[in-house]
C-alpha cells in the first residue's frame, strides 16, 4: 500500500506501471485492477478555469487517507492500493488524483475504488481554488458525480 501527496506533475501510467512492476508478490495473484483518475478540466460551473491551486492539511491528509483505505480493506477483499494526490498549482488536463486497486475479483476492485474515491472527496482535507480568466474562487462543494 502506498499513499503519496505530491507537488510534482503526475504521470499516472508511469506510476502504476512502476508500482506494479516492483510488487513481485502480486504477480499472477490478481485478476482485477480498477483505476480512477481525476483530471483537471478547463471549465467548471460554466466558466473557463485557467489553473487551480490545491491546498491541503499536511499530516491530517495522510492520516485520513490511511483511515479510509483501512476501512475499505475491511469491506472488500483487496490485495493492494496505490493512491497519489496532487497539491499546489495545477493546469488543465493534469491529473489531480490517482487511485489504483488490485484484487482477485472485479467486484471487489470496482467497489473498493469507488468507496475510497467518495470517502476521499467527502472527508480528506484538500481544498481547490480555481483561477478564472478574471479573479479566483474557492470550490465550495463537490459535484454528485453525474452529468445533470
Amino acid at each position: 500500500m502506498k499513499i503519496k501527496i505530491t507537488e510534482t506533475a503526475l504521470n499516472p501510467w508511469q506510476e502504476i506501471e512502476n508500482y506494479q512492476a516492483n510488487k513481485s508478490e502480486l504477480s499472477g495473484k490478481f485478476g482485477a485492477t480498477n483505476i480512477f483518475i481525476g483530471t483537471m478540466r478547463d471549465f467548471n460551473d460554466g466558466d473557463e478555469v485557467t489553473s487551480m491551486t490545491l491546498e491541503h492539511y499536511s499530516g491530517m491528509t495522510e492520516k485520513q487517507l490511511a483511515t479510509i483505505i483501512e476501512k475499505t480493506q475491511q469491506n472488500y477483499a483487496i490485495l493492494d492500493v496505490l493512491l497519489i494526490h496532487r497539491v499546489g498549482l495545477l493546469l488543465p488536463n493534469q491529473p489531480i488524483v490517482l487511485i489504483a486497486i488490485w484484487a482477485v475479483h472485479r467486484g471487489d476492485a470496482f467497489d473498493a475504488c469507488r468507496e475510497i474515491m467518495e470517502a476521499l472527496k467527502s472527508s480528506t482535507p484538500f481544498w481547490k481554488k480555481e483561477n478564472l480568466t478574471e479573479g479566483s474562487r474557492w470550490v465550495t462543494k463537490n459535484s454528485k458525480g453525474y452529468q445533470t
Partner: protein
Amino acid sequence: MSITVRYFASLREFLNKSEEKLETTTALEIKEVWTQLNPDKVLPENTLMAINMAYVDADQKVQVNDELAFFPPVTGGGG
C-alpha cells in the same frame, strides 16, 4: 502551555491568518478557543473541526498542547 490553532483555505483567507497559539493551562471548549482568538467573528456555518488531525464535533474539549484546526468543507479529488 498552549493550544495550537490552524485555519485552512477560505477560512484562512477570511481571517487572514493560518496559525496561532492560545496560551492556556486548562482544557477549553472549542467555541471558547474560537471566541478568544476571533472575538469579532462568528464561526462560519459548515466549518469542520479537527483535534490532533482527527475530526471532532464542536462540543469536544481541547486539551493543552493539542492542535486544533478549523476549515471549510473539503473539495479534493476530481471528477
